[in-house]
């Protein structure tokens, strides 16, 4: 009797377990989603290109209800972004932390020796590539990149000042690349805190040129204070809508067309902490696909003349590995590597 009762009980438990299992199964199939607010780290200060894009994404996600949990953006730009990257590296397995990158993902560890690399993080998706444009004040005589480079070549050594964001980062890397063409003359590279400051310093003629991202200088261009000479991409921009009275982004020649064989683009991508599960990565890939499908995103891309390239998975990983190698080579050539790198 007792045994019979026991067996009934056991069977009951078994049934309950099966029921529980059945209840769990659809949940597992339904894929992972965030259970608390997602921290979106910006490894740069407020107001710059990465900051603008991250806050924009935060806004688009909130406005279109793309996620149940909110995104909270946090600026951690200390130590040329090392602060933010180290935090993500430490947050192993935490799927509620994502980070937006700029080139300092590659340049900061190479230039400062701070121990992190992209391999410590989990690649999620490439959102876009940010362009670089060679700008001069509108009332200087240079109409093409070639004229400007020739002027630098003809001038005194270091008499032309190139303004840029940060030191041993993308802007200075491009400057060093340009110096191959102006050899033996060099630029004086003047590092500033942010791209907005650089554009203003250029309008005020405290420097002779800059390689600002489009979004950082577009307003000054519209107002007729700056002139774009060339874009550091293999082909012209696809945006044909007029920005000024006479010119669209697509009217800016590539640097190659103007006889300046230099190309450089900056990754605007998303990474997560190490040790996160594939379905967690998949959630964010899907989320960013939804963000990119919005009309707001398309307007934002056009405003900043971004190169719209989306990548995820292995394709993205391969791209990042190649970009890392490229930065290593460029920085080695420029002598920017930290001791021991």
């Amino acid at each position, binding site marked *: 009797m007792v045994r019979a009762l026991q067996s009934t009980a056991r069977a009951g438990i078994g049934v309950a377990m099966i029921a529980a299992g059945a209840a769990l199964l659809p949940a597992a199939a339904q894929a992972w989603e965030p259970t608390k607010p997602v921290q979106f780290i910006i490894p740069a200060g407020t107001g710059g290109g990465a900051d603008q894009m991250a806050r924009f994404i935060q806004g688009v996600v909130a406005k279109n209800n793309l996620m149940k949990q909110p995104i909270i953006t946090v600026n951690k730009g200390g130590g040329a972004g090392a602060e933010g990257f180290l935090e993500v590296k430490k947050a192993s397995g935490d799927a509620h932390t994502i980070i937006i990158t700029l080139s300092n993902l590659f340049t900061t560890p190479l230039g400062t020796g701070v121990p992190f690399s992209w391999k410590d993080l989990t690649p999620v998706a490439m959102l876009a590539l940010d362009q670089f444009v060679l700008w001069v004040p509108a009332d200087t005589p240079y109409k093409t990149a070639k004229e400007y480079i020739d002027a630098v070549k003809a001038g005194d050594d*270091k008499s032309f000042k190139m303004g840029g964001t940060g030191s041993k980062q993308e802007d200075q890397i491009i400057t060093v690349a340009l110096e191959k063409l102006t050899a033996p003359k060099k630029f004086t590279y003047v590092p500033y805190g942010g791209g907005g400051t650089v554009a*203003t310093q250029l309008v005020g003629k405290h420097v002779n040129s800059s390689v600002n991202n489009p979004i950082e200088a577009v307003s000054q261009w519209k107002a007729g204070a700056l002139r774009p000479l060339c874009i550091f991409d293999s082909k012209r921009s696809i945006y044909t809508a007029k920005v000024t009275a006479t010119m669209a982004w697509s009217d800016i020649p590539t640097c190659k067309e103007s006889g300046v064989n230099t190309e450089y683009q900056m990754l605007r991508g998303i990474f997560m902490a190490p040790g996160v599960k594939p379905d967690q990565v998949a959630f964010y890939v899907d989320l960013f696909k939804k963000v990119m499908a919005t009309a707001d995103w398309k307007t934002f891309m056009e405003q900043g003349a971004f190169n719209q390239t989306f990548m995820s998975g292995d394709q993205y990983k391969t791209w990042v590995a190649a970009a890392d190698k490229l930065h290593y080579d460029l920085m080695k050539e420029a002598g920017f590597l930290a001791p021991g790198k």
Partner: protein
Amino acid sequence: MVYQTCRDESQSTLKVPGTIIPTAARRETTGRYTVDEITSLIGGFKVALSWYNLALMMVGILLGVIIGVLPGLGGANGVAILLPLTFTMPPTSAIIMLSCIYWGALFGGAITSILFNIPGEPWSVATTFDGHPMAQKGRADEALTAAFTSSFVGALIAVMLITFLAPLVAKFALQFGPAEFFSVYFLTFASFVGMGKGSPFKVLASMCLGFALGSVGLDKVTGTLRMTFGHDELLVGFDFLIAVIGLFGIGEILSSMESGLKFSGSHAKIRLDAVLQTWKKLLSYWITSIRSCVIGCWMGITPGGATPASFMSYGLAKRFSKSGDNFGKGEIEGVVAPETAAHAAGTSALLPMLTLGIPGSPTAAVLLGGLMIWGLQPGPMLFVEQKDFVWGLIASMYLGNIAGLLVVLTCVPLFAAILRVPFSIIAPVILVICAVGAYTVHNSMFDVWMMLVFGVIGYIFQKLGYPLPPLVLAIVLGDKAEEAFRQAMLGSQGNVSIFWSNWLVGSIMTLGVVLLFWPLVTWLGQKRKSRSGNLAAASAGAAAVDRDK
């Protein structure tokens, strides 16, 4: 329509920076401007004065005051946190609410500085120098009224500047290159020399420690790490807010504990007419107010920011005031000067953001991000393309500041009454607020420990008679001054004459040098006077000489 043509004219002046417009033409433009500005402003008031916008304004002010009171949170963070709330609002309403948070935070920063010696915001540090001593003497209500009123005056003048001179003044900001920035920082340091009443060597030691702490972290000019000794926590350097919360807030609690666990301000009387009484006194400080407004507006536009403005204004007020020797002991003028300048700077910092797209302050930078999300492109074209938005914002600056002043002034007796709470209750509360504030800066526990270390340093400094203001000033502006100096040196290829290369930078540098050596000049003057006195005495008799010696 007239407005449009007029704007186009201004646009053409912006198009060619550096072009000299004939004086007559410029006057004509400015003259027509004024009429148009007023018409546009009235249009702006119509936008801002809807019930919905007025309600948002009050919500913004209250949130802002709370944000300002909590140290470490800060206006920039507060605006950043609340930014997503505004994405579903119309852009004009959104910016009205966010800018009101900003005004509220500017007002709120003064409250904790005066009552507890904890500056809620970097630009409130200078307010503690005299505001807190006043509170200790039982004059907290007076200090608060002075602070709020001065803030209002500063902001009002700056808004008027934005209304009528925006395009003209915006061009001035373009004149500022690295050399000019350095000259401004140099002037700030120079106006602070001789602040301490003790030994000048102690001032120097304190300032040098500040410079050393300020240089930890990434060297922005060479892109390499300095003085981090391989510790990742030191990458970000010593944040100024953590140092200030520790040195002032925790240091103050330690001192109070020693002096018998009570706040010396506890005998504060609650006077309901305190506001009116203080206003009468404030009228006599009009020169200080004007000077502080000028400093503030200038620093806001250039964009030096509210923090150097408040320090510089305090330093100059002390230098030029008849009662300069009493500064630091609870002089009302020492509250008026930094508060007026900080608010004038904080407000006029929005001007370069609107007209040039460069943020004059961290909060302005976050607002700039907001503009982009609302689909507005900040920069020279904003005034032309988004008239409703710009003038709605400017009108809300007037209304927001008036609303803010009313809110905070009615609360003055309430704030002053906080000091009557027994120390044993309030001290733990302050400690928690300080710790939360320090944590919020980088979301890191390391900062909380650093805050405690700074607290002990602050206490030891007080015991040994080393002044804290030079230390704080050096942490705040040291790295910026260094960066500007090195940028200028790069540009001039090492030639120091760049600091006298045009009238603007030359005059600021010369003023700085004069101020720097002023104590020496007065000291030499006194010495000569006493020496000539000695000579006269010598002829009169040797005994007199001995006495003089």
